[in-house]
């Protein structure tokens, strides 16, 4: 086995795994607070990439691409707030009996709607924002500057997210809501507002991934499909509802895919993550950091 190739694959897997963990974090965060799976995460990733492209091309220019990232996240955050307020809140206040089914149907409907809207508004073709940076060599791995920027951006966002969740009042409230939605209300916290915030933040994380990866993975109506796919793989590996699990799961998925590529074939790269997922589901159904649900 060529050591150079092995190190390149592992590094490549680590980089993409960390970036995909942003998607997984968004999915798991929304699940933790709202107890629902957002099946349209990939479409928020896609919207983030479109906003990024539109802002760079029409507003800030290629040299100031970094200004577009917070704008893309902000736009998708606001969109998330609106969607949560008008389409998802009825789950909790509208007397919906089957909340899980409601959330599934609603978010799948949103997925179809956004994909088709993207075709109507942006056309079916692909776009690519100009490169954020020149290619770099990360250890032994030659990668695009865009991917390196995406890695740094992801690490910054993960750090910020950790700080907000662990060190701020709102973070404590969100953790409380994740543990016990009813209990937190007895402390005078408006859990419906927290839902809105969680949904907005969760989809903004997906938008950040879309914006950061736009020059590498292009901008087109279905570009969010594979990242959603990976995001769900990661949360099952890491454990649904676990923030640490999404980061570790992302890294693990990336490395497993890399090792499979080295020792078997790169052609089946996406298969190896599923093998890991199946093994984990057999021996640890809650994922690496997930906890068994308790009820009384």
């Amino acid at each position, binding site marked *: 086995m060529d050591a150079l190739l092995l190190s390149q694959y592992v590094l490549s897997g680590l980089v993409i795994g960390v970036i995909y963990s942003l998607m997984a974090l968004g999915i798991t965060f929304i699940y933790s607070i709202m107890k629902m799976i957002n099946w349209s995460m990939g479409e928020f990733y896609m919207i983030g990439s479109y906003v990024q492209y539109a802002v760079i091309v029409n507003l800030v220019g290629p040299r100031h691409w970094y200004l577009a990232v917070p704008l893309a996240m902000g736009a998708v955050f606001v969109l998330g707030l609106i969607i949560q307020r008008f389409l998802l809140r009825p789950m909790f206040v509208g007397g919906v009996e089957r909340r899980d089914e409601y959330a599934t149907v609603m978010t799948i409907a949103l997925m179809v709607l956004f994909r088709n809207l993207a075709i109507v508004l942006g056309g*079916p*073709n*692909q776009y*690519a924002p100009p490169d954020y940076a020149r290619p770099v060599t990360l250890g032994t791995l030659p990668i695009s500057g865009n991917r390196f920027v995406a890695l740094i951006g992801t690490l910054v966002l993960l750090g910020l997210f950790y700080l907000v969740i662990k060190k701020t009042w709102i973070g404590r409230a969100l953790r409380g809501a994740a543990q016990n939605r009813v209990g937190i209300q007895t402390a005078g916290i408006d859990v419906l507002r927290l839902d809105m915030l969680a949904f907005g933040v969760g989809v903004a994380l997906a938008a950040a991934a879309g914006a950061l990866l736009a020059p*590498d993975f*292009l901008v087109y109506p279905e570009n969010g499909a594979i990242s959603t796919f990976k995001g769900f793989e990661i949360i099952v590996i890491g454990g649904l509802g676990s923030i640490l699990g999404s980061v570790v799961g992302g890294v693990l998925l990336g490395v497993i895919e890399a090792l499979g590529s080295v020792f078997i074939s790169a052609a089946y*790269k996406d298969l190896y993550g599923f093998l890991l997922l199946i093994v984990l589901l057999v021996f640890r159904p809650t994922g690496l950091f997930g906890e068994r649900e308790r009820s009384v």
Partner: protein
Amino acid sequence: MIERIRVALLTALLIVSLAVPALAQKPVKIGVLTPLSPPGDAAAGQFIVRGAKMGAEEVNARGGVLGGRKIELVIEDDSGTPEKGAAGFRKLATQDQAVAVVGQFHSSVMTAVQVLAEQFKVPVFSTQASARQITEKHLNFTFRTHVIDPDRCVMWTRWAKERGFKRVALITENTDYGVGLVDETKKAFASMYPGAELKTVIFDRAVVDLTPQLLEIKNWKPDALFNGGIGTPTYLIAKQAWDVGLTPAVPTLISYDAPSRPEYWKNLGEKGNYASFIVYYHPTMRLTGRGEAFRKKYMAEFKEDPIYGALNGYAQVVLLADALNAAKSDNTDALLKALLAGKFEGWNGTISFTHGEGPYWQQWSPPMLVIQYAKPEMPFADAKIIYPAELKTGDWVAAPKP
């Protein structure tokens, strides 16, 4: 009583006299089933629709077909997926009662709909679907006016041999087209280029991160890279191959004419430079009178040179109009006979359909050329033809050593 009969007869006469012109004016419908949304190559579909519409306009402007009936196009999106293609074809054949269907681009979709074409007895035309099996099955209602993959693979094998590239890597997608490219290229290398090595990598079409596959290829140290993506994967391969340092140091040849589209430079920028690619049309080519008129009209309308898909979409519609007139009927059996018996003016030659051997069944092939971009943002019309030797307008340019 007689008065009543007279009124009834006059009424019947009136109805018949009104109905006859209405029937005469009933348009002849031609379906255009093509990818207009992802995951299909939607840009290709748009160009095909453009050409088909211009074909219908031209036919209608000169009085239509079958003594004054207009051609009406019914456009359906197959999204590049067999299931949507099959649903679209069923609708065109049954609900719309199209007399023929043109616009097929993806081989996987064409393979699915040609079975339905046989079932509904509606001729289907491959506009840019090139897999061998499409015409090799010898189906009566399948026609193609596009190259076939065995010829494409023979051509790029010859190109590699002529350039002295002894280690060639082919990366392609897991579609009928991609798998076909792998099979045909292996055959071509084995028979025409013994001693040369071919490495093939097939990836899932939905995958966006091709870094591991491209690193594997880079580590194998190829002399040339064949890019067998269609639509978005073409650009992903080109971008990421450049990012991992594989291209432009390793020359690349793209399997079809995607780089001739205006979106190419927008998507790739400098990463698209030095790419060679296979085309079936070049602005310097001599066209038929019909083709030349189309090119002029297209350039006046869209302010750019036509793309091959548009030329072929146009040619298929006017060819069908000619065949309908020859058949003197919109009955599909009569149309089929006329298609097989006739010679039709295409955009760059006379098209006829014969029952040839193997995949050359009801098949007409345009020329194939390899051209190359030698500087960033190079207009398609300025790109030189580098292969075959007899049609060369310039030499292949190697990228400078890093």
